[in-house]
Structures are given as C-alpha cells and as structure tokens.
C-alpha cells in the first residue's frame, strides 16, 4: 500500500514536471514575442522569474535551454527526462530513480553530466 502510494505520488510529480516545463517554455515564448514586438530589445529569461541564481548565470534563456534539452533528448532521452524531473519538477534523486525505474547512482551520474553539458551548450553555442 505504502509502495503503491509512493508510486502514484512520483507518477503525479513526473506529470507535473512535464506540465511545468511546458508552462515555463510557453510563457517564455509569449514574453519573447511580446518583447520583440516592443522593439527587439535583447532580453534574457530566467527559469523562474524570481530565481535567485548565482552570479555568472543570473539568467538562463529558457528558450535556449529548451533547444538544448531537445538536443539532449535526441541523444539520450533518459538524461533529458532526468533534467526535466529534477529541474522543473524538483524531484529528489530517489524519486527520479523510482519514476525512471533505474538506480539512484545512475540518476546522479546523469544529472551531473546533463547539467554540465547543458550549461556548456548554453554558454558556448
């Protein structure tokens, strides 16, 4: 019973992560087109508008990340899923391992690699 509850909870979180990703990206696209219409000013979009990101990466372009994430998905779908669950869904490593039916160690390795690779794609396109 406990296990079943936990599974349905993580399944819910996984769905929520996908939804959140779509919401954030759609929002960014809408804003981007609005700003472009307003005079083509260069803007950057942070993931969450109010995220207190560290200096050096104070604002990541959501659209650029989305593009990189698509690229990652084409190369390794599971890694893209880990990013989605971790970044948009806020799931813990153990929870992600449960959703993807893999080991926490694999999730950790995937996460470590993916976030570095994505960052590199964004900073030196």
């Amino acid at each position, binding site marked *: 019973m406990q296990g079943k509850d936990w599974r349905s909870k993580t399944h819910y979180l996984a769905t929520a992560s996908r939804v959140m990703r779509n919401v954030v990206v759609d929002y960014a696209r809408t804003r981007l087109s609005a700003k472009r219409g307003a005079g083509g000013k260069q803007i950057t979009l942070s993931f969450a*508008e*109010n995220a207190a990101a560290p200096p050096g990466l104070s604002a*990541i372009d959501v659209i650029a990340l989305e593009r990189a994430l698509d690229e990652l998905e084409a*190369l*390794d779908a599971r890694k893209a899923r880990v990013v989605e669950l971790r970044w948009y869904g806020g799931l813990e490593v153990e929870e992600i391992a449960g959703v993807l039916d893999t080991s926490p160690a694999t999730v950790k390795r995937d996460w470590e690699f993916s976030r*570095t690779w*994505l960052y590199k794609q964004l900073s030196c396109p």
Partner: protein
Amino acid sequence: MSLSPADFHQLEAWFAEASTLPAEKRARFVEICRETDARLASELEQMLEAQPLAEAAFLPRQHGDWRIKRVLGEGGLGLVRLAERDTPTGKQLGAIKHIHANFDAGSFRARFLKECEILKALAHPQIAAFLDAGLDSAGSPYFVMEYVNGLAWDDYTAHVKPTVERVAMLFRDLLAAVAYLHESSIVHADIKPSNVLIDRAGAVKLLDFGAARMLDADGKSRDSTFTRAMLTPEWASPEQRQGTSCTPASDIYSLGLLLRSCCGESADLRAIADKASRDEPSERYESALAMAADVTHFLRNEPVGARTANMQYRARKFARRHRIAAAFAACALVAAGAAWWIEAERARQASELRSTLIENVRPEKAIAQVLKSAAADMEADAPKTEQAQLHLRMAQMHAVRSRPDNAAQELKAAETAVAADAPSPERDKMRVRLLLSQGFVLGKQDKLVEAADMVIEAFKLWETIPDRNIELRQSGYYLRELADALIARGEFSRGIEILHWNVRRTEWIGDSATTNVNKRDLAARCAQIPEAIRSEEKLTKLCAN
C-alpha cells in the same frame, strides 16, 4: 557542434572518468583523450571548465533560508512553491509565495505586501500561519506561510465523501476562522473551494488572502474596483460582482454557496446555506458566529433557526402577497390543495385506476377515464355511498379545472346521497372525505373561515371512526398553508386548531419525523401569535389615529 550518438556516449564515459579524478590530473586526462579524438576532447575540456558553474547554476533555488522544492500552484500575482529550511529540530516545510516579476510594481506590489501584512497579523488554528518574509536577490518580495498538505474542499467532499455531520463540523471550524477574521476587521473576499483545505489530520484551513481587505472604522472597504478585477465570479456575492461593496456579509454569501455545494440531502444545512446566500446582504446571517450557531443547532439535532426563519420569511412574503392581492394568495393555497387531493385519491384508487391509467397520463385525465367507466357501470340501485363516490369524483374534476361552483354542486349531491344511507363506519369515512373536499373547494372560493370549519369538522368525525382508516397522507402541505393563511388573516384559533389536527394526523400515520416537524410548527405559531396580535393592535391604533 552536433554530436553523433556514439560520440555522445564516448563523451559521457570520458566525463564520468574525469569527474572521479582530482583537478590537477584532469588536464593530463584530456591530453590522453585528445590523441584519440581531438574534437571530442575539446568538448570534454569545455565541459570540465563549465562544471563548477553548472553546478552553481542548477542548485536548488534559494530565498533566504528557504530552498525551493517544487511548484504548488499559481496564485493571482505569482507562483506558490513548496520550500524547506533547516531548523535546529530538522527540516521545516513552507509554501513560499512570490510576486511575479511582471507584477512587481505599483499597486500590484502594494497589494502583495498588504496580503503579507494581513497574514502576519493573523494567528488562528484554521488559518495557514505566516512563517517568514523577505526580498530575493533581485529585490522582489516573497513570503512564506505554513504548508498545508491536504485536499481542497471540493476534492475532499467529492473523494472522501464525508457524512453531513462531518461536513457540518468542518464548516463550523471554518466559520470560527472567518468570525475571527471579521473581528480583526478583515474580509477574505475570495472564499471558494480551492482556498479551503482539509489537511492530513482532518483539520480545515483557510488560505490565500490575495484578495483580502481591511475594513475602515465604518465597516466599509476601499478600492473595490481592484477586488472586482481579482475575484472569482462564480463564488462572489452580487455586491462584489457589481463592485458596489465588499463586507463581512460578502464572505457569508460565499460560505453559503460553499455549504450548498456539499450539504447533500440535509434540509437543515440547505436552509442554512440558503439564508447565508440571499441576494440582499441584510437578509443573510448577521455574522459568521450566527451562522456557526445554526450549524451547531443542526449538530445537536435542535431546530435550525434558518428553517424557522425561512418559514417566517415565507409567511411574511405570503402576507405581503396577501395584502396586495388576496385572491392570488388563495390561488397558491388551492394549487397546494389540488396536488394533495389528486395524490390522495390516486393512492386510494390505485388498483382501480391501474387498468385505465396510461403511463405518464395527466392525473385529471386518468380520473376522467375512471369517471366515464364508473358512470356506465352505475346501476340505479347501487349503494348511496358509491353514488356519493361518483359525485365526489365529479367534484374533483371541476375543482382541478378551477370550476369551484360546479364542484360545490357535486359535493352537495354527494352529501345528499350519503345522508340517505344507513349509518355505518364506511358512511362516516365517506363523509370525512366529503367534508375535507368541501373545505378544499371553499378554500378555492377564498372562504377560508368556512373552509377551516369544514376541515375541523372532518377531523372531529374522523376521530370517532373505529379504524380511522382514511388516506390522509398527502394533506399536510395543504393543511399548513391553510393554517398560515388563516393566521395571516387574524384567524388565530382556527389556524392553530388546523395545525393541531395536522399533528394528530401524522401521529396516526406513524410518521414520527413529520410529527415532530408539525409539533414544532405548531409551537412556533403559538409563540408568534401574541406578537402578531400586538402588531395588529398597533396597526389598528395607527389607522384609527
């Protein structure tokens, strides 16, 4: 640059290996890789350089002591997210609310800060508590409130399916919280299912003060246009929708809608919900406490004020209507009576009618068919009671077709027929039915006093019949309306006597629940009468002056 899947996996393997190495050995490792694939090695080099920055960039976002975990929902002005912080006794969860960057200006920011200020001032077990507030690195404000892990009111009632008693208990707790708010001169202004949560322990919690407002000393709130833009029309009171005002009575209205959405079959809770959600604010409960008192009455199986009030409300409306047009009041009475009559006759003649009754046919049509066949079968030497029966049915036909004079004629004929019969319990039963029918027809002719006398005579006779076995089930509504009409005209003793017979009637049927309701009605009317007489006297005096 684009990578092939094979390159990508090679890169991944190298990266995993390099990550295990101490920093000073990584450069050497990259050089070794470069001998295999120069292009891929520079990719690796870039990644290793980016690693610490990436780690920082993808850290869980943090505000003050709070680490963001995930999104809980979207409020009017920004996101609400689950966050946690470390305390000496372990991790504490909170719901962090941020103003959206788009809204972080002017009146929106002021609004957001006001919500924070209101929440900070409140301390009640049924209100999600304020925990912390601050500014993020970009200077945008945020605040943190107690995280309520539970179900929204509508999800809870739909999935947990609580009993009406449980609903009433939760509602009483919710009302206590709203009463506390109002005492603190705060109107929530957006009470709806998604803002009322039931937590894991089964406690009710009120949240989201995004639309809340503080009242001035005179009990009025300002800037109603702002509320209007933010409110949820489905749950908002008429005065909020029109933007005219927003007062504690507006919260009472929304609470009424909320209660109505889940009161099930309970007539008492429905009456409470109805009273709370009247269009006219002054007709609603005067306070959340008064509403809570009525919910408590329900829980203790005591008479619910709203129901008596609804009856008084109906009686007042009845009297008002009566003053304007007495005839119209009589029409309402007759309509109720006709329904009873047809029902009673239908029940009694069920087997007789079954052969002729076509599904979904209108009752008077069915009766007409019976009449036709009965007339054909009628023999000259048939017992007088049966002749009376036929006249009675004819009378009913006329009555339901609003021909009271013809109906009275038929009843007269029936009476004559019955009088010619030898005395027997069956004859008396027929006479009881005739008297009741005459009472009904007289009511239809707006002769209320005569109608009452007939009904009273009928019941007196009924009591002398050994088995008293007459179908009287459907007459309650007619009797109550007749009594109310009599009382409204100042015919108190007749009205009370009819209510008394109504009690005797349900006692005989054995319907104890309805008997209790009827007894309560009787007592309520008895209590009102002295007051009514005084008003009447005052009115007479005023008119005399």
